[in-house]
C-alpha cells in the first residue's frame, strides 16, 4: 500500500470539493490499495454522508441512498416485497460480513476480479492502458464472453448491478458540474480500446442515489446465480428477470445477465424474443439463444455460454410459475 491523504467529509458539497477517491465500505478500494492496484493520493471517506436512507418516491418507485449497505438494502421490506430480484441478487453476493460493509454506490463501482488486473506484475490494459492483456492467453475461465475487446475481457462482477439493470434503475450523481441522472443502461461503457474507463462518471462525480421506477402492476422478478460452490463466489453466470404477465403471455420482460459480460449485461435481444409471446419452454430457449448469440468464448470459458442460457431459462421458468407479488 502506498501512502495517501485521508479526509472525512460530512456533506455532499465538501465531498465533491475534496477532489479525491471516495471511500465507502472499502471492500473493493482498500483491497486493491493493499495490492497497489489502486494508488489514490487522497482518500475521501464518504461514510458520514446523509445518504443511507431507502425512501419511497412520491410518484411511486424507490430512492436508495448511495451509502445504504447491501445487507440493509437486501432486507428492506419494500425491496423484498416489490423488487425481489434485487434482494436475491444482493444476498447472493459476497459474504454476510462483506455485505454489511458494502454500499450501493460502491457496489456499482466495484472492480473486476480478473487475476491479472489484481497483480501489478502482470500486463493489464485496464490497470495500465497499452500494457497488454494477460488474460487473453492466460487463465480466463472467469472472464467475459460478451462485450469483450481485443484489449480487455474482464467480467463486471456485480450481482446487484445486474438486478438493477433489469429494474431499469437510474443513477443520480453530483459533481463539479452539478447534478445529473444517468440511466443505468447508459452508465457502464464497453472496454473497447480504453478498458480503464468503465463508466460515464467524470472525475470527482459522486453517486448520491439510485432510483428504481415503480414496478408495473403484477410484476414478478427473480435472480438466479450459478457458480461452482453454493456461497461466497462470483457468478459463473447469472440471470435477472423482471416480467409482467397477461394470462399466459409475457407482456413486458426485462432481462439482464451477470458473470458473462464486461458490464452488467442487459439483453434487449432476449426481451424482444419474449415480449408478447407465450411463456413456454421453447420460447425461453429461443430467448436464451438470442441473448448469447453474440458471445465469443475464450480458451477456458466456453461453458459459460451454455450456463448463461441455463440460468436464463430456469429464471424465466421460475418467475413465470410463481405467485405474483400483487
Amino acid at each position, binding site marked *: 500500500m502506498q501512502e495517501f491523504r485521508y479526509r472525512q467529509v460530512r456533506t455532499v458539497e465538501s465531498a465533491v470539493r475534496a477532489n479525491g477517491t471516495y471511500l465507502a465500505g472499502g471492500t473493493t478500494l482498500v483491497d486493491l490499495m493493499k495490492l*497497489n492496484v489502486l494508488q489514490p493520493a487522497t482518500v475521501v471517506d464518504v461514510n458520514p454522508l446523509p445518504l443511507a436512507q431507502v425512501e419511497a418516491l412520491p410518484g411511486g418507485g424507490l430512492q436508495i441512498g448511495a451509502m445504504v449497505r447491501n445487507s440493509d438494502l437486501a432486507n428492506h421490506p419494500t425491496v423484498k416485497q416489490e423488487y425481489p430480484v434485487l434482494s436475491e441478487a444482493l444476498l447472493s453476493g459476497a459474504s454476510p460480513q462483506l455485505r454489511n460493509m458494502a454500499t450501493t454506490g460502491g457496489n456499482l463501482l466495484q472492480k473486476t476480479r480478473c487475476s491479472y488486473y489484481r497483480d501489478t506484475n502482470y500486463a493489464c490494459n485496464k490497470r495500465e492502458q497499452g500494457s497488454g492483456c494477460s488474460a487473453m492467453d492466460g487463465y480466463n475461465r472467469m472472464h467475459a464472453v460478451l462485450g469483450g475487446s481485443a484489449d480487455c475481457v474482464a467480467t463486471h462482477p456485480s450481482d446487484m448491478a445486474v438486478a438493477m439493470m433489469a429494474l431499469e434503475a437510474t443513477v443520480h450523481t453530483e459533481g463539479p458540474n452539478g447534478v445529473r441522472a444517468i440511466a443505468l443502461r447508459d452508465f457502464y461503457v464497453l472496454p473497447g480500446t480504453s478498458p480503464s474507463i468503465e463508466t460515464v462518471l467524470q472525475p470527482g462525480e459522486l453517486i448520491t442515489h439510485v432510483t428504481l421506477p415503480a414496478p408495473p402492476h403484477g410484476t414478478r422478478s427473480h435472480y438466479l446465480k450459478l457458480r461452482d460452490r*453454493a456461497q461466497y463466489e462470483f457468478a459463473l453466470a447469472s440471470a435477472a428477470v423482471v416480467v409482467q404477465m397477461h394470462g399466459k403471455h409475457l407482456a413486458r420482460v426485462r432481462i439482464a445477465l451477470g458473470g458473462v459480460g464486461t458490464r452488467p449485461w442487459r439483453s434487449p435481444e432476449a426481451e424482444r424474443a419474449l415480449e408478447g409471446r407465450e411463456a413456454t419452454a421453447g420460447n425461453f430457449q429461443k430467448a436464451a439463444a438470442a441473448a448469447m448469440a453474440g458471445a465469443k468464448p475464450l480458451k477456458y470459458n466456453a*461453458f459459460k455460454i451454455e450456463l448463461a442460457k441455463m440460468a436464463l431459462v430456469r429464471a424465466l421458468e421460475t418467475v413465470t410459475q410463481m405467485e405474483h407479488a400483487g
Partner: protein
Amino acid sequence: MSTSIIGAAVNRVDGPLKVSGQAQYAVDHKLENLAYGVGVFSTMGNARVVRVEASDAQGMPGVLAVLHRGNTPPLYRPAERLEHSRAGEIRPPFEDDQVYYYGQYVALVIANTLEQAQAAADKVRVQYDVRKPAVLLSEAPAPQGPPRVHSTRGDAAGAFESAAVKLDETYTVPVEVHNPMEMHATMAHWEGENLTLYVTTQGVLNYQKVLAEVMGIPVENVRVISPFCGSGFGGKLFPWPESMLAALGAQHLKRPVRVQVPRSMMFTTVGHRPLTQQRVRLGATADGQLVSMQHDVVQPTSMVDEYVEYCTGVTKTLYACENVEVRQDLVRLNVGTPTPMRGPGAVPGLVALESAMNELAEKLGMDPIALRLKNYAETDPGSKLPYSSKHLRECYQKGAEQFGWAKRNPKVGSMRRGNEILGWGMASAIWDAGRGGATVRVRLNSDGTARASCATQDIGTGTYTIFAQVVTEKTGIVLDKVQVVLGDSTLPPGPTSGGSTVTATVLPAIAKATDQAVQRVLQAAVMTPGSPFFAPHGTQAPKVAMTNGWVHEVDKPYSSGVPFEEILIARRLAALDGEATTGPDLANRERYAFNSFGAQFMEVAWDPGIARLRVSRALTVIDAGKIINRKAGTNQVLGAVVMGIGMAMFEEAIYDPRTGKPINNNFADYLVATNADVPELECIFVEYPDYHLNEYGARGIGEIGLAGVAPALAMAIYHATGVRVRTLPFRVEDVLGGERATIV
C-alpha cells in the same frame, strides 16, 4: 466416573481459552521491542537474482534492515536423515542466487511496524535474469534416475494380459494447499547464545533441532514454544523458510523479530499436496476376482527437494491380489517443495485405486461393495501378517444399511428427486495405525490439582483433552483440575503431531506416568506421620488405593479416606511426580499389520437444467479402534469429510505457466467448501479396541476420515451425470463441454 471418562463425549479442555480469545497463537505472544519482518518474494518462477536494489526501501520510515543474500551470513542446511530432523525445504533461504519457484524469499525487510515493513517491501526492486519456468507436468523433463518406488508381487503384467476383464485408466489429483486458518509465523528472540522461538507447529522438537542446525548452535540453546496451533494439516510438520529468516533477522538486529507468511504466500512457500498423475490397471476374472493390479504414478517435486507422495502403498495392501506392481517416478518443476497433507499418499492414492475399483465394478456388472467383499483381504497381502484388528467388512455392511444402499438403481441418471438427479457413490478408506515413543510427566499437587506435560502439541485435534482424560480416569481428579502443558520443547520429549499417531503414542505414557505418581502418593500415605494410613516401622501397612482423588483403604469406600492432597500436606510436599517413557512396541509390529479402515457413502444432487451439483448426503463409517473422546473423534472425521468435499468439488491450485504463480492464490479464487456446500454429515464408529496397539485399544483418527471421500463422490457424480471425473476437482465444463485449464 473414573472409567466412563474414556470414550465419553468430552468438551475440549482448551475450549474456553479458544472461544474467549485467550489462547495464544504464534503472533499473539507479547515480546518487548518486537520488530516486524516482511518478505520480498520472487515474482518469477525460474530466474537468477542479479541485484537486490534496496536503497529506497532502506530509507523509508521505521525500516531497520533489508536482508538478502548479499548482506547476510549463509545459513547451514538441516542434517535431515543424519539427525532425524527435517525442514520443509532443504535449501535455507538466500543459499544461492537462483530462484527455483514463484514466491521464494529474495529478501526480508524488517521495520518497527508491520505496515512500515510492508510499505518498504513494496519498494525493494529485484533485478532478475529470467528463464521460462516449468510448472506443468507436460513441461517437465522426463523422469530421471530409477523409480523412487518400485515393488512387485507375482507377475502383474502377465496376469493383466490374460485377464478376462481389464481396466486401464489415468487419474489426476491437482495441487492442493493446506491453508490452515492460522498462517505460518515465527517470532524469534535471542538472549545471548540462546534462541527462543514462538511458532505454530506440529512438532516442537523437530523444529528445535532444525533451527539449531540451521543457525549452527547446540540444540539445547534453542527453545520452541507453540501452545496452540491454528491447524496444520501436515503443512506445519516441518519448519519453513520464514522460521529461519525470523531467527536470522533477530540475530542481525539483536532484537526480537516476527515473520508471518501472508495468505498469498501460503500457496507457495509452505508446501502443498503435489499433483499426481496415476495410471491404474486392474485385471479381473469375469466374476470379479482381482488377478492383477498395477499402479504407476508420475509426480512433480521441486527443484531442490525430492518429496515422494506415496500413493501406491494402498494398492499393495487394500485388496487380496497375488499379482501387484507399483511404480512411482518423480519429475522436477519450478514449484515450491511439496509436503505431507492430510492423508499423504493414501488419500490421493485412493482417488485412483477406488475410482478404478468403482469403474471395474461397472464393467463387471457388479455391485461395488460386492466387488470389494470378493477381494477382501483377511490378512495383509503385502506382509502376509494378520491384522491387529480389521472390521472393514462391518464398515461396508453398516454403511450400506444406514445409507439405504440396497435401494440403489445403478443406472446413470435413474434416481430422481424433483428437478434433480441423485447420484450415489462409495469407496473404502484405509490408513496406517502407528505408535511411537513418548515421555510424559504427571504431577499431583498439594492443592488437589494435577498437571501433565509433554513436548508434543495440540494442533486442534484434542490432544490436551486426551491427556486430561487419562489423568482423570486414573486418579479420579475431576477434569477441570487437571492442567495439561504441551507445545514447549523443554518438556519431556513427545511426538510430532502427524500421521494420526499421537493418541496411540501418548496414551500408554500418560497412563504409566499417572500410575507412577499415584503409587508415590500411596507410598507416602503409609510412610508419613500424620497420614491416617501411617504405619510406623514394624507394623503392617494397610493396603491403600486412590479413587475419585481420595486415598483410602482398598476394602473400604473411598469416602472413608482423605483427599490425596492431605497426604502431600502431611508430608510437606508441594507435589509428587510420575514420569514414564513408552516406545513403539516393535515386537507387535512384527506380528501384526496395523491399519484403520472405513467406508464412505456419498450422495450428490445434480440439477441438469442449470448444471448445478451439490453434495446432499455423506455417511462415514470408521474402524479406528477405541474412541477416546467421542466428540473430538467425530469432529476429526467430519472435518476430514469437509476437506474431501473440497477435494472432489473445488480445490485446485492453478499455476500460470508464464510466471509460475498459482494464479488463484487467495480465498476468493481458491475454492474450499463453505458451510452451504456441506450437508448434514454422519459418522459411525464400529468400535473394536485394538489392544495390540496399546492398552486402550485406540488408534489415531486425523486422516482416515478424508480417505475415500473424493472417489466416493466421483462415483456419485458419474451416477448422476454420466461423466467420469478422472481429473479432480469436478468442474461444470466436464459436463457442458469446453476446455479445462491445463494442469498437467
